[in-house]
Each structure stands twice: as C-alpha cells, then as structure tokens.
C-alpha cells in the first residue's frame, strides 16, 4: 500500500503555494521598507546640503556665519584620528584573534574570554567614552588630544575586529594547517605562510567596516570633551582636534536654520567617506577571497 495519497497532495498544494507567496511578500516588504528609509534620508540630506557643498566648504574653518562655515578642521581631524585608530586597533585585534584561535588551549578560561569579547562588541559606545575619559584623558593625562580620542576609538572597535579576524582565521580549512605542520613547520611559520594569507581578505574586510564605524561615532568624543570650533589644525598627536561627527552635531543643534543645511553638507562628506571605505572592503573581499 502507498502512504502518499496524490489527491491529498493536490488538495493541499494550493494552500502550500499561497503560504509561500505570503511569506515572500512579507520579506520583500521588509526589504522595501529599509530601502525607502535610505532613499528618503539621502534625498533629504542631498537636497538640503548640496547648495553648501563647494571647495570653500572643504577649505574653510568653522565660522559663526553659515555661508563662511567650513569643515577643514573636522575633516583633517578625522583623518588624523583614523591614522591612529587603524594601526592600533588592527594590530591589537589581529594579534588577539591569532592568539585565541591558534595558540590558546580550549578550556573554560579561554571560552570565557571569547564570550566576553563578543559581548564587548555590543557595549554602548558612550561606555567606551567614559573608559577613555578615565584612562587616557585623566590617568595618562593625554588631555582631549588626538591620541586620547584615537585610543578610545580603538578600544571601541577592537571587539568587532577581533571577532571578524577570528571568523576569518577559523574559516581556513584545518587540512591546510595539517599540510604545513606535516612538513615540520612551526606554529608561527604555519600562521604567517598559510593561515594569514588565506585569512587576510576576511580580516581586512571586517577591519575596514569597523573603522568606518569609528569615523561616524560621536558619543565617545562628546564624553571625552573634544572641542567643536577650532580655527587651527592639530600639529601633533598631543594637540586638540575636532572630528566630522562632532562638527555635524554642533551645526545641527544651532538655532539658525541655515546651519541645518551646513550640517547636511557635512553629512554628505561623511557619507562619501563611508561609501569609499565600504567599497574598498567589498573590493578586497571579491578580489582576494580564496575558495577551497
């Protein structure tokens, strides 16, 4: 006897297909909603800020008058800050990931450390700001300097980089390590010649995405007390500076309506920055990713 009855199958066919269509419509609506929000945001920002976007905007310092206000100090400040954040966070993050994945023994302690690093990635940025204020600004007496802000931002994105690097390292097939160990290679030789070359695309992609988060973060800078109106460029890692999100925040809260448009212009600059960095990440991922 047959257990599967064709008439029952045909009867249920229509409901099954409708259910499938229903779920598809729901998921599509979800995607559409996100896209719509993005489009509204972009249209608003660009229509408001485009008028203020010119060469002077890039080369002027901040000003009381909206038409003379520029973003030079913030733009250069952000670039300087990132040149501290990038090496510090990537070197520390990759080193930690290598230790946890390749050297650390799997036991309760290392599991605890792994779990906490993942949790740290979810800690609100303002908490990292308070940490930076206590350690770098006050205890190490770095003041409201580029270094203090750079270190704070590095701490903020460190967990993200560690987790991304761990994932990338874990994705390297075990057989590749075995091949290397099987010829008498040390752990270090195996890491530098087999594991890292295969993991670097993933590590870089994760790092760049983390760095683009650091560019846009405001809360830690507010807590540290980074100034907003600066008429000079920082001349050393110990000097004061201001950054793009701080500048935008300051413009957005001013009473004059024109400053809102100036803020929009600032946001456009910030977004161009982010798009460039994310494109680099996508490019690296597509170009260098190896398939086994």
């Amino acid at each position, binding site marked *: 006897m047959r257990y599967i009855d064709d008439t029952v199958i045909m009867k249920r066919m229509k409901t099954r297909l409708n259910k499938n269509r229903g779920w598809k419509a729901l998921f599509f609506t979800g995607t559409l909603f996100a896209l719509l929000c993005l489009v509204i945001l972009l249209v608003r920002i660009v229509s408001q800020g485009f008028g203020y976007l010119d060469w002077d905007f890039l080369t002027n310092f901040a000003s009381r008058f909206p038409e003379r206000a520029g973003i030079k100090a913030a733009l250069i400040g952000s670039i300087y800050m990132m040149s501290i954040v990038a090496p510090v966070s990537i070197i520390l993050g990759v080193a930690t990931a290598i230790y946890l994945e390749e050297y650390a023994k799997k036991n309760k302690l290392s599991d605890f450390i792994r779990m906490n690093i993942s949790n740290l990635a979810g800690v609100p940025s303002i908490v990292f700001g308070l940490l930076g204020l206590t350690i770098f600004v006050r205890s190490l007496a770095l003041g409201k300097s580029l270094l203090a802000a750079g270190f704070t931002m590095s701490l903020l994105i460190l967990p993200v980089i560690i987790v991304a690097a761990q994932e990338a390292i874990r994705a390297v097939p075990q057989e590749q390590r*075995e091949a290397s160990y099987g010829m008498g290679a040390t752990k270090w030789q195996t890491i530098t010649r087999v594991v890292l070359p295969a993991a670097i695309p993933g590590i870089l992609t994760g790092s760049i995405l983390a760095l683009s988060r650091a560019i846009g973060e405001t809360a830690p800078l507010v807590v540290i007390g980074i100034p907003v109106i600066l008429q000079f460029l920082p001349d050393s890692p110990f000097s004061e500076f201001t950054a793009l999100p701080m500048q935008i925040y300051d413009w957005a809260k001013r009473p004059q309506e024109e400053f809102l448009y100036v803020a929009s212009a600032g946001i456009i600059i910030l977004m161009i920055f982010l798009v460039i960095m994310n494109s680099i990440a996508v490019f690296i991922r597509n170009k260098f990713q190896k398939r086994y």
Partner: protein
Amino acid sequence: MVKTMIKNENTMKNIVQSSQNVGEESIIINDQNKNTVFGTKNFNLWYGDHHALRDINLDIKENDVTAIIGPSGCGKSTYIKALNRMVELVPIVKTNGVINYRDRNIFEAQYEVEELRTKVGMVFQKPNPFPKSIYDNIAYGPRIHGIKNKKVLDEIVEKSLRGAAIWDEVKDRLNQNAYGLSGGQQQRICIARCLAIEPDVILMDEPTSALDPISTLKVEELVQELKDNYSIIIVTHNMQQAARISDKTAFFLNGEVVEFDNTDKIFSTPTDQRTEDYISGRFG
C-alpha cells in the same frame, strides 16, 4: 562487480604463487637485515573517554611498504597520525606507551615535534595543496627549513616533481595555481611536496580514497617506485590495494592489531579467523 571479483581471484592466485616461490625462510632472513623504523610498544591512545588504540605492538621495517587495513573506526588512521604526532592537534587526545622512531621515543619531552615531522612526511586523505603556485607548494617545505637559494630550490622542485612522476605534466606551468590541477594530480603534487623535505618515512592516510581509478593506479605505481628510497606506511580500506602494493600488512580491528605479517601470508593463509573473515569480505 564480476570483473573485480575475477581480478581479485587472480591477485590472490599470484600472491599464493609468489609466497610459495619466495618461501617463509627467505623473508625472515631478509627481515633481520632490515632496521626497524618505527617500534611501537604497548601503545594506548584515548580520545577523551574513548579508548581508540589498545596495546599496540608493531615493528615497522626500513624500505618496506607497510599497509594498515581494517574497517572504518578501527583506529588505523589514528595510529598513522600518532606516528608523526599529528594526533596532538586534537586537544582531548591522551597517550601512553612507547613509539620509537629510529630507537628514540617520539613522546619524549625533549623530542621536538617539528624535528620528527621533518623526517616523517605525510600525505593526507584529501589532496590538500596550498592555494599557491605549483612551485611554491613544492618549495614550501625547503623554505620553512631555511633554504633560500633560488638555484637549490629549483633543483629540489624538479627532483621532487620527477620523484612523484608528475614533472612532465606540470613542468610548463610551475607558476600556475595548484588548484587548477585535477584531484589525482593534486595528490601527486602533495606527494612531491612531501618528498621535497627529503623524509625518511612517508605516511599515507588513505591517499587514493578521493581519486578515480586511473589516478589511483598512478599513485600505486608511484608507491612502488618510492619504496626503494623511503619506508612507506599506507592506510587503506581497499584490500586489493594493500595486496597489490604492500610488503607487510597489519589488520586493525576495534583499536587492536589482530594480525601483522607479510602481505602474501595475510591474504593467503591468515592465522586469525577475524582476519580471514575481513579479507574475504564477510564483514567491514
């Protein structure tokens, strides 16, 4: 199916004949002249609570092809991976007993595992070349041992590829990625990569199980050529393969060595009933 059985029968006949021709005595005399490469004494291994190898005692001789056969899960792969301490990559492994490589216990605290693995090369079940050029794959071993001279490396690469009988197929594309090769070629690249560190012993963990019959044949022929210069230990669950290429065969079952003897003896007149059941296909 029928064909293989006929072939099988022929192999068996050949084996029986050869064992009659050679005779027991000559083999024993032959053995006494050969040095022991791996001496295993009362060796036990656990994966956590699972007792995977029980009181293994085996003496593996120089320039022999030693086949290790047995059903899945009998511990044959575990044993071969113990010989170059590859089992230590699994964190829960515990061992006791002795495995001597050239009369020195490899589990001695002062024995550096890197030193052992330079002498004892390994070819894995699944071809695992690096995602690098063919040249860089072969030069990997010499490079990690500090050879930088381009001329020396060139010579090692050519010698190793010739040794693995793949030089003619790849000599014009040494700079291409090894992933572009077929599975069988990749496995011979892996053998060449292993030869490049000039090992004393080559461990092969089911080297042909992922290959088609023609590639398998090439690897088997290669093993025959290599045995003049290397001691080879090969794990296989293809009994015909063990019969074709090995001098000695060890039959593993449930983590124990049931029988270890000359291959022709094992396949013609095994002592143990379980061996006979296994090689005649009654289980496994």
